[in-house]
Structures are given as structure tokens and as C-alpha cells.
């Protein structure tokens, strides 16, 4: 199949269309505007629904409504807008509705800037909204992964009745890169909970409110059981040379693609290096670290933030002294040579 050159934000949009998404709700924010514009055009072409909402709050709640009625629905935004969506995301998680939320991250906190960043790791992976819930978080690192993981996101959302986040960044969103628009065979998941009107069946109710004594505890236990199933089945991770490496670089998204080049540079200079690239940030690929028994190995975590995923690596590696961090916030992009220098220092 031939490759075409496409902007990352548009690749996400095309994957959604191919995965059967016909309901998109969004609000303008940089650096993800190409996605909104693309969906506006494509939804017209495929007879879907595009709606520019009055706010991020409205957009996520439109997704909630469309999903409650059985549609594959999506919204996208960038960091400050994703903060606004957290209320709706918590409700969607509590009500167990499928939804796909795209965050094309930019620098923060506050209005920050519009440069690429990975500063929303904590928000995506550790909660963001209120309550004990989990998002499935997918971290693409190139246009092909933007396509493949967006399609996967819809299947995972439907399968687990859970919101899924695509955690991309401004670099991935803005970059043009060749991509193969493979035919997507979406999973058909039965939805016996969908609201259609109570015709010839008992009325259905979708809610996250459980006031009866013990009911909310029970609901939370049910959610936790689901999260355990997701953890057992859906961890995705790419590794390279980790059994032989003395230094293992850990990175996801844009920093992972730069890391790969740095690891190659190290190998060419005779350094035993490898990498771990988590594809699911939640569930985090804990086992890769736990199974690594060689205590002499060092981890170098590279992130475009002030150190967020590094806390998960420390937790899983079990020994903080083995874990180093290289990263900055505010729209900073690591240089391959600088990552290489840090690998070299650890040998």
C-alpha cells in the first residue's frame, strides 16, 4: 500500500473517520486546529456530524450525549482545553461510556505556549478529573502510530466502555510525515446499554450517581475490576536491545523518536544501549522493568517536561539510584546529541 504525506493532526482525523467515528465535537485551540478543520470537512463528506461547540466543556458533554446514544464520538484539544474537559471525562468514566479524547500537548502551566510538550503526563495518567478512575492513554510517536493508535482507541473505548486518550504533542500534530492509511477493520462491540427510547424493553439509565448506602463503593469496585482487566490485557510497549544494554533509555511520543536516534549513535560508538518506549502510558508497562533483574543496568528517562513519567520508572525499577532524568518543560525539544551525551555519561 502506498504512503502519502499528511499532517499529523489530519492523520488522527482520517483514522477516526476510517474507524467509524461520525460524531466529532471540538473547539479551536493551537496546535490541534488542523484536526478540527479536517473533521469539519470530512464529516460533511461522509455524512457525519461535526459541531464546533461553544466551549471545551460543551464539546466533551456533546461527546457524552452522542456516546450515550451509541455513537463512536471524539473530541480533541490541547492542554488548557483538556483541563476544561476533565469534568466531563470524569463523568464519562463514572458512567462507563466509550469516548476518544485527543490531547495535542503544548507548553504549560496556564496558557503556557504553543510549542510541543509532554507536560500533561500526570494529568492523563494519574487522573486529571475527580474520583478513582483511569483513562487508557495511548502515546503515538510518529504519524503511522497516530493513525494506528487512533483506530485502536475506538476499539478499546467500546470494548471496555471507558474513555481513551491519545496523548500526542504539538510536534507530532504539526509534522508532515509519510503514512499508510491502512483499511481499518473496526471491532463491532454490542452496546446493550445504549439509550434509544424504551421500546419493547425496560427503560435504561446511565449515571455516575450512587447515593444508596454502599452502592458507590460497589460501583468503584466494579470499575477497579475493569481496570485490572485492562492492565492484564492491554499493555503495549516497544523495546530494543534491553537484555544486552547497559543503559536503557525510556521515552514515549516525540522524545522516543529522538531517543531512537541517540541509541543508534551510542551503538555506533560501541556503547551497549537500548530503549523502552511505552505505547500505553496507562496501563504502564511495569513488567518490563520488574522483569529486568540485572541491577547494574541504568535507566535514562527522557521527557519534554520536568520529570513526570520518571516517577513511574522509579516505582517499577525499584531502585531510584539506577534512574536518571533528562528533560525540560516549556516547549523544549531534546537534541539527539544531548541525549547521546547523557547515555555516555551513565556507562
Amino acid at each position, binding site marked *: 500500500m502506498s504512503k502519502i504525506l499528511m499532517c499529523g493532526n489530519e492523520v488522527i482525523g482520517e483514522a477516526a473517520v476510517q474507524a467509524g467515528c461520525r460524531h466529532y465535537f471540538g473547539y479551536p485551540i493551537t496546535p490541534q486546529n488542523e484536526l478540527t478543520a479536517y473533521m469539519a470537512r470530512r464529516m460533511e463528506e461522509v455524512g457525519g456530524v461535526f459541531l464546533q461547540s461553544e466551549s471545551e466543556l460543551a464539546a466533551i*458533554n456533546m461527546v457524552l450525549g452522542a456516546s450515550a*446514544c451509541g455513537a463512536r464520538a471524539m473530541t480533541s484539544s490541547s492542554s488548557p482545553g483538556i483541563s476544561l474537559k476533565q469534568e466531563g471525562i470524569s463523568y464519562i468514566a463514572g458512567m462507563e461510556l466509550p469516548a476518544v479524547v485527543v490531547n495535542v500537548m503544548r507548553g504549560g502551566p496556564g496558557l503556557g505556549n504553543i510549542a510541543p510538550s509532554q507536560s500533561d503526563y500526570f494529568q492523563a495518567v494519574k487522573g486529571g478529573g475527580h474520583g478513582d478512575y483511569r483513562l487508557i492513554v495511548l502515546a503515538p510517536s510518529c504519524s503511522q502510530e497516530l493513525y494506528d493508535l487512533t483506530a485502536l482507541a475506538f476499539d478499546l473505548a467500546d470494548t471496555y466502555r471507558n474513555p481513551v486518550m491519545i496523548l500526542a504533542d504539538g510536534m507530532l500534530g504539526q509534522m508532515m510525515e509519510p503514512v499508510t492509511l491502512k483499511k481499518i477493520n473496526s471491532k463491532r462491540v454490542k452496546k446493550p446499554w445504549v439509550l434509544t427510547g424504551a421500546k419493547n424493553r425496560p*427503560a435504561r439509565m446511565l449515571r455516575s450517581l450512587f447515593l444508596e448506602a454502599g452502592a458507590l463503593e460497589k460501583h468503584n469496585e466494579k470499575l477497579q475490576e475493569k481496570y485490572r482487566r485492562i492492565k492484564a490485557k492491554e499493555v503495549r510497549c516497544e523495546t530494543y536491545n534491553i537484555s544486552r544494554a547497559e543503559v536503557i533509555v525510556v521515552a514515549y511520543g516525540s522524545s522516543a523518536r529522538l531517543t531512537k536516534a541517540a541509541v543508534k549513535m551510542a551503538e555506533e560508538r560501541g556503547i551497549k544501549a537500548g530503549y523502552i518506549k511505552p505505547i500505553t502510558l496507562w496501563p504502564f508497562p511495569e513488567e518490563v522493568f520488574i522483569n529486568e533483574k540485572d541491577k547494574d543496568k541504568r535507566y535514562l528517562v527522557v521527557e519534554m517536561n520536568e520529570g513526570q513519567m520518571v516517577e513511574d520508572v522509579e516505582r517499577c525499577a525499584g531502585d531510584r539510584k539506577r534512574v536518571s532524568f533528562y528533560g525540560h518543560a516549556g516547549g523544549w525539544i531534546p537534541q539527539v546529541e544531548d541525549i547521546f551525551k547523557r547515555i555516555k555519561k551513565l556507562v
Partner: protein
Amino acid sequence: MKKVFGRTRTLRDTHTHYCPGCGHGIAHRLVAEVIDELGIRERTIGIAPVGCAVLAYYYWDLDICEAPHGRPPAVATGMKSVNPKNIVFTYQGDGDLAAIGFNETIHAANRGENITVIFINNAIYGMTGGQMAPTTLCGQVTATTPSGRNAERYGQPIHVAELLGHLPGVTFSSRVALSDIPNIMKTKQAIKKAFQAQMDGKGFSIVEVLSPCPTYWRKTPVEALKFIKKDMTKIFPLGVFKE
């Protein structure tokens, strides 16, 4: 024996949690009767609010969903976009609709979303303990206005039915009251017109219902009805503002 009165199909056979003299029970029943008289129960989806009526889904026997505080019009927009044949209605209080959710309300109305909004205006936040609402009357004592609502600080109460009536996307906007039997019958007629407008695909319809909250008005149920008639309708005139 001939049966002359009974529970309507869409109302569940259960007790409500509402306080004595509260208007929600009457409003719920009117909505249920209208849905049954129009024969639309099997294609209707309701959206329950945050507030006293949050448990409305225990009382209506139809497909129903909750929404975050203030967001029912956005949720309804999403729902209606999936299957326009569904009849979608929201049931919202004054804090929900006119404070935290006014942006969602005004934009759904302006887009002319083909949905129906039942807006319960009791001039107070009931569920949280009787705080000032955007519709609280000037001088009205609440938990957060112990000396009465001061217009210099908080402005005048918001007139939702009139305000939305100005928007081209709104096809029906009316204010009614649950103050006595004739007005309750008028309320039912207004609710019916609002649902009918949606069935005819005409756009956004809203019925603002002045409803008693004896508990947080610190009145008896009878005094509360008098308060609607004497005080509330002076500030919130009844009538049809768009048809």
C-alpha cells in the same frame, strides 16, 4: 367500576424524596402525562440535572441519562445528533440552567437545537441548602444572602424565558406557574406545546416553571403558593414570549 384517574405510564409507582409542598412532583407528573398523551415514551430520552431533581430517573420510566451540572443542553445536543427521531428533553433547575450552565443553554438555544427544556425556577438552590440562585428575588433571604439579595451586589434576577425568546433558534418560550389548579393546567399545556414543537422539528423549546420550595423559602406549602402568586409573578410575569 369505571376508572377515572390513575398513574400515567411514564411515572413509576414509587415515592419521591421531595419535601412536602415541593413543585417537582407536580412538574414530573405533568411531563409524564404529556409524554404519554403524545405517545412518545418509546422514543424519548430524558436528561436529569444536578440538584434536587437529580433522582428524576427513579421517577420517570423512560430512557434517561445524567449530566454534569449545567451541561444538559450540550449532552442533549450530542444525543439528538445521533438519532434526530428521538425526543430529547432536559429538566433543569435555576442554578443548573441560568448560572453554571447558561453558556450551554444560550448556545443550544441559538443553534436552534431541536430539544425541549423544562426549566424549574424556584429562585433557590434547594439540594445544597438554600443558597442564592440567579433567579432569587431582590431582598429574598437565602443561606448566602442572610440580609436578602442585594441588587447592587448581585444584580436583578435573570429572566430566562424572555431572554431566550429573543433568539431566532428558539421556537417556543413560555413562563408558567404551579401556583394553583388553573395554572397547573396551563403549565401542562405549555409543556405539551414545547414537546409538540420538537416533534414538528421546529427547534429549541423551553418552559420556565415557577415552582414552590417551601423548605428553603421558610414557608408553609400554602404560603409558598401565595409567594409565587404575589411576589414571584410580579418579577417573573407569566406568558408566552415566543411561539
